[in-house]
C-alpha cells in the first residue's frame, strides 16, 4: 500500500515500532519514577525538617539540570564504571530518576492536602498509624493528585524523545531514519505528530475529566 510518494506501509510499520519503543520506555520510567516518588514523598511528608529539606535539595538538582545533560552524564557513568548496561536501561533509569524528582513533590503535596482533622478523627477511632495511612490518607491523597500524576506521565512520554541522543531508536529517531530514506519530511513528521497526539490527547482529556469530577466532591 502506498501513501503518496515512496512512503510505504513498511515505513509506517517502522514508525509504529518506534512508537512501541516510546511507550515501553515511558511505562518503565513512570514505574520507576512513581515507586521512588512515593517512597521519597512519604519520607519527606513524615520526616523532621532537616531530613525532608536535604532530600528535597538533592531531588531539586534533577529538576534544575537539563534532562539531555542528565542522559549524557548517566551514559557516561555507564562506560566509566564499566557497567555495560544496555542503552535502553540507561534511558529508563535516567528518566525514572528524573520523574521521581517531580513525583516526590506530587506525593508530598497530596499527603499534605489530606486534612489533619480527618486523620486525627481516624486515629481517635483506634486505627493504627499504618491502618490510617492505608484506609484514609492514601485513598484521599491519590484522588487529589491523580490528575497531576497523569500530567507527569504524559510529560515523561514526551521527554522520551530526548533518548534518541544516546542512541535509542524511539519514535522521533524512527522518523529521522525513514526521512533519510523517503525524503518527505513534512509528510512523515505529520504522521509522527499525529501518533504523538493520539498517544497523549485522549489520556490528557481523561485526566481533565477526572479532575473535574473528583474536585466537585
Amino acid at each position: 500500500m502506498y501513501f503518496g510518494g515512496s512512503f510505504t506501509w513498511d515505513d509506517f510499520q517502522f514508525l509504529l515500532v518506534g512508537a512501541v519503543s516510546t511507550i515501553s520506555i515511558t511505562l518503565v520510567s513512570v514505574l520507576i519514577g512513581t515507586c521512588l516518588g512515593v517512597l521519597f514523598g512519604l519520607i519527606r511528608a513524615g520526616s523532621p525538617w532537616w531530613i525532608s529539606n536535604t532530600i528535597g535539595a538533592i531531588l531539586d538538582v534533577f529538576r534544575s539540570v537539563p534532562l539531555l545533560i542528565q542522559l549524557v552524564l548517566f551514559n557516561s557513568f555507564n562506560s566509566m564504571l564499566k557497567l555495560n548496561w544496555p542503552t535502553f536501561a540507561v534511558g529508563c533509569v535516567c528518566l525514572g530518576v528524573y520523574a521521581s524528582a517531580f513525583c516526590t513533590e506530587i506525593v508530598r503535596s497530596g499527603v499534605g492536602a489530606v486534612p489533619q482533622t480527618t486523620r486525627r478523627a481516624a486515629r481517635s477511632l483506634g486505627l493504627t498509624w499504618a491502618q490510617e495511612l492505608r484506609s484514609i490518607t492514601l485513598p484521599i491523597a491519590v484522588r487529589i493528585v491523580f490528575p497531576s500524576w497523569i500530567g507527569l506521565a504524559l510529560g515523561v512520554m514526551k521527554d522520551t524523545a530526548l533518548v534518541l541522543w544516546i542512541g535509542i531508536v524511539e519514535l522521533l529517531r524512527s522518523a529521522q531514519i525513514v526521512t533519510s530514506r523517503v525524503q518527505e519530511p513534512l509528510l512523515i513528521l505529520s504522521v509522527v505528530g499525529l501518533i504523538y497526539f493520539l498517544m497523549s490527547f485522549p489520556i490528557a482529556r481523561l485526566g481533565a475529566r477526572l479532575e473535574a469530577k473528583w474536585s466537585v466532591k
Partner: protein
Amino acid sequence: MDYHFQWRPVLRSLPEMLGGALVTMEIAAIAMLLGTVLAIFLALCKRSGKRYLALPADVWIETARNTPALFQIYTLYFGLGSLGLQFSSFAALLFGITFNNAGYLAETFRGGFEAVPETQIKAARSLGMSSPQAMCYIVIPQMLRAVFHAMTNQMVWSILMSSMGVIVGLNSDLTGVTQQLNVITYRTFEYFFVAACLYYLVSKALTSSARLLAWRLFRY
C-alpha cells in the same frame, strides 16, 4: 575505575562555556517574552467565544501540549524546508520553545483570568471605569499574582530545554558549546558535569530572584 579525571582543560574553557550560558539565557528570555505575548493573545481568542478565533487557538494549544518540544523544534528545522522555509538551528530552537511556551502559558492565563472574582469587575465598573480600565488596573494585576509561579516554572523550563538546540546542530548555547568541546577532547563527563553545574546555578539564581520579586510585588 580506570577513568582519569582531567579538569584543567575544562576550567580553561570556562569563559567559552560562560559565553554559551549567556546565549542560553538570551534564547530563554526572548522565547519567554514572545511566548507570553502570544499566550495572552491565544487566551483572549479562546475567551472570545467566536469559532474562527477559538478553533485555531485550540489547535495551537493542543498541539503544543500533546507533542514533544523536541518534535516541534525538529519539525521547524527539518520539516518546513520543503515549503521553502529554511530555519537555522537558532531560529528553530527559539521559535520551537516560543511555540511551546505560548501553548502552556495560554492555559495558565486562562486559569488566571478565572481566578479573579467577577465581583471585582462589578465593583470597578460601578465606579465608572470602562471595561479596558477595569481589565488594566484591577484584573491583570491580580491575575499576575495567580500566574507568577507557573510563569517562573516556564522560564526555568525554557532555560533547561534550550539544551535541545544541540540536537538540531546549534553550537552557540551552553550545551552546544559543551558538545563542541566534547567532540574535540572526548572528556565527555568533565565537560558535561561543569555544564550541568552552570545550568544548576542559572536555575537557582532565577528561582531565587523570582521569589524575591514575588515578595516585593505581592506584599498584600
